């Protein structure tokens, strides 16, 4: 109990459930925003039934006094406006004996939840809402939660005011009234999940999703052209970029399909404009032929794959790290390219911006593997630092006698002439070519150009950004992307038991960095590979590219369930023999 209280004072997890029309998503977003205004960090993820409208939905939040990137092992508060089909969320909302289930008076919570041994509380949500003219239960719920966690109502009032402005003062007033009376109905439970709020002004905080962060990273990196075809869960990235690009003098084109979008990028980039698209697994599959064209013709492009459950249409709304193989191996021929993976919401910004910088600088294609979890998580984070990465493509700006677009030598990057530059006309080609660009099937030319395209990537110094490395121990956990967050949390839990582990999470997946990995693994005697894929794709990748004297152990779990820190802890304890 004491322990619970301690944890609770720094981090609280809340799930709001309700079926269509209940407005739990709106309530969740408002709560997150209010918490941010109160100086808290937090994340919010969402889950929903398959119905387009009217389906059951869950907003899952974690609010904390420190930056958080993933959900906790358990939820502290589960609050349902109704329980219709709510048991579908059982696996996503784990509860414990210290959890509190709150529901409408006389509406029995599903056994799936009560089996956890959690306490229950009934509140007349409907009736409280009805007492206010135009009152809504989701606003009552907000008041209830604020009271339980001790969040002052003032920031929430502000949020209501700014978000409901266009609905008029009456709407604001009734929402405020509902919030206040909800807060007044918690009785002895008031403050029972009190978060310790610091009175100091927090650093510069942002409320942003991973998809938005990737979009902002793209624009900061110099992207001014996007062509794309909508696909869940990448659509929001595109929706954010369309107006944002216009503001900076760029444009987003909705293309007829992914074949068109990737090829439009190639055209725009050939003309000198840094270009990017966002898609998900099915779209990436369609694009692969032309990503190879970008590689062969040395035309920089960036493809952000916001991964979802696969194969085929799979589970579009849920996360999985199962496009690693197609990103690494999916191009036909020997096609060296860049594969990068952000590992937090904030890192979506950095990694996307870095990917653009690298693609432009190295004149190749970059695939950025984000996922639904990162992309659609909305988080309160510290403002990401500015980084100096901008496009920086090597351009042949002046006429040049005997210009060769694919000249070999040096670091492998050959200056690119843009249309409009007199005297440098050439034809970019996906056919193997001589240095001039003229098609050639000669062995020497093929060899030379293959070497060129490989060497320019391999010889580049990617610096410390290639991976995140944390901790000391002789036991390592190697992970990537959104799986890093639960692994870090697991490390924190182990540290309190006096166990340290070493975390290695490569941000740069291709080209591989054997020397750097060797350095990172110095002194390590065993390693667990944690990933969200059924086929243990990352594990096999590590075995293939980073073979070690010790055996890698695999903890591979398919989506849609997120990996929980305590799972990682348990696995480390058995496999690491602690």
């Amino acid at each position, binding site marked *: 109990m004491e322990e619970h209280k301690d944890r609770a004072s720094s981090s609280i997890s809340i799930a709001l459930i309700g079926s269509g029309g209940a407005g739990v998503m709106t309530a969740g977003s408002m709560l997150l*925003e209010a918490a*941010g*205004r*109160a*100086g808290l960090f937090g994340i919010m993820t969402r889950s929903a039934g398959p119905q387009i409208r009217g389906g059951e939905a869950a907003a899952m939040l974690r609010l904390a006094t420190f930056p958080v990137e993933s959900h906790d092992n358990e939820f502290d508060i589960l609050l349902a406006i109704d329980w219709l089909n709510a048991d579908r969320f059982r696996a996503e909302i784990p509860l414990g004996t210290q959890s509190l289930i709150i529901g409408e008076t006389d509406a029995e919570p599903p056994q799936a939840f009560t089996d956890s041994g959690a306490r229950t509380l009934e509140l007349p949500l409907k009736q409280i809402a009805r007492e206010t003219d135009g009152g809504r239960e989701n606003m009552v719920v907000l008041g209830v939660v604020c009271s339980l966690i001790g969040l002052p109502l003032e920031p929430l009032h502000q949020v209501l005011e700014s978000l409901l402005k266009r609905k008029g003062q009456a709407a604001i007033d009734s929402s405020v009234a509902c919030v206040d009376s909800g807060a007044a109905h918690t009785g002895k439970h008031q403050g029972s999940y009190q978060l310790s709020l610091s009175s100091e*002004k927090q650093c510069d*905080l*942002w*409320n*942003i999703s991973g998809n*938005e962060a990737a979009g*902002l990273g793209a*624009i*900061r990196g110099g992207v*001014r*052209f996007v*062509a794309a075809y909508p696909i869940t869960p990448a659509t929001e990235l595109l929706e954010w970029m369309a107006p944002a690009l*216009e*503001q*900076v*003098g760029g*444009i987003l*084109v909705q*293309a*007829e399909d992914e*074949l*068109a*979008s*990737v*090829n*439009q*990028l*190639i*055209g*725009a980039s*050939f*003309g*000198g*404009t840094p*270009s990017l698209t966002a898609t998900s697994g099915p779209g990436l599959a369609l694009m692969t*032929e*032309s990503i190879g*064209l970008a590689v062969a*013709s040395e035309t920089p492009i960036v493809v952000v794959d916001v991964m979802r459950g696969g194969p085929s249409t799979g589970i579009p709304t849920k996360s999985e790290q199962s496009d690693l193989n197609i990103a690494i191996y999916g191009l036909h021929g020997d096609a060296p390219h860049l594969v990068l993976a952000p590992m937090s919401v904030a890192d979506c910004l950095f990694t996307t911006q870095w990917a653009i910088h690298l693609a432009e600088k190295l004149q190749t294609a970059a695939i950025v593997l984000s996922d639904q979890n990162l992309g659609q998580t909305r988080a*309160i984070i510290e*403002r990401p630092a500015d980084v100096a990465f901008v496009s920086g493509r090597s351009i042949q700006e002046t006429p040049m006698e005997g210009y060769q677009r694919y000249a070999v030598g040096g670091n492998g990057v050959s200056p690119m002439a843009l*249309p*409009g*530059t*007199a005297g*440098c*006309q*050439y*034809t*970019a*080609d*996906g*056919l193997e070519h001589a240095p001039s660009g*003229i*098609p050639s099937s000669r062995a020497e030319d093929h060899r030379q150009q293959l070497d060129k395209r490989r060497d320019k990537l391999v010889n580049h110094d990617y610096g410390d950004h290639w991976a995140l490395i944390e901790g000391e121990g002789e036991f390592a956990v190697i992970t990537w992307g959104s799986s890093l967050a639960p692994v870090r949390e697991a490390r924190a839990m182990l540290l309190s038991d006096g166990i340290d582990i070493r975390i290695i999470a490569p941000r740069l997946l291709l080209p591989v960095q054997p020397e750097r990995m060797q350095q990172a693994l110095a002194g390590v005697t065993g390693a667990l590979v944690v990933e969200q894929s059924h086929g243990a794709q990352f594990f096999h990748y590590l075995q293939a590219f980073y073979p070690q004297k010790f055996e890698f152990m695999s903890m591979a779990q398919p989506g849609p369930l997120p990996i929980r820190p305590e799972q990682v802890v348990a696995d480390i304890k058995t496999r690491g023999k602690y």
Partner: protein
Amino acid sequence: MDQTSTSTAALKPKDYKSDTKPVWCPGCGDFSVLSAFTKAMAAMQLDPERVVVISGIGCSSRIPAYLNVYGFHAVHGRALPVGIGLKITRPDLTVMVAGGDGDGFSIGGNHFMQACRRNVDMTYVVMDNQVYGMTKGQASPTTEPDWERGKLTPHGTRINPFYPLVIALASGANFIARASSNDPNGAARVITEAVQHPGFSFVQILSPCITFRPEQRDWKKIVHPAPVVATADPAVAARRLMTDDNFFIGTLFKGERVPFTPEFEPRAESAHELETAFRMSA
């Protein structure tokens, strides 16, 4: 005939040719189309460095490297999106896309329709030989259903041919014409008109594959000029197409459909302004 004297500085058709020699079969209609391209460019006195010719894959799609302009030899069927991406971001360039009937109407068929719809200011030239030359003579979308010499369709395709002009008109192309490689000068004229007309211009050039369809050498005798002037009325054009025998040569349609020209006016001072939306006001 205009009476200005030819300036010595004027570019001649051969100035638009590169030093790369075509791999085509002697006798292929594409040689004539290449000549028509150079003549059209010379007639317009285009700066070679401000022209980009983009193609897909096929015999005909080899054309960019034979020209002394910027070129992009992309993958099979995807030349149009490459051209669209380029033209949207570089409206200062003259963008032309070229390729074959397989490239444009089969694997790239959807892009063809969508490019007509989008109506970006560029010119698309299809060298139609009613066959896949590059892969040794299979039937293409424009092949007659009873042509039995395609090895993958020994009994003929037995499916309806694709009518590119009809599709172009229905999909929104703003300029539609047919030319013949038998008359490179006439083809040059049509290409010139196509480039000069705003929006998406589509030119089908009947260009025989003498290797896999030697009978197409007879096209010379079959083609005939259309005895009409181009119309701006899609309904009139549609009616004319109903009696088209696929061998009328000439410009069918010069529309007034508004080209897609997005604006590029930066409105925010810098990318940093975009951050304000995310900032929490405590």
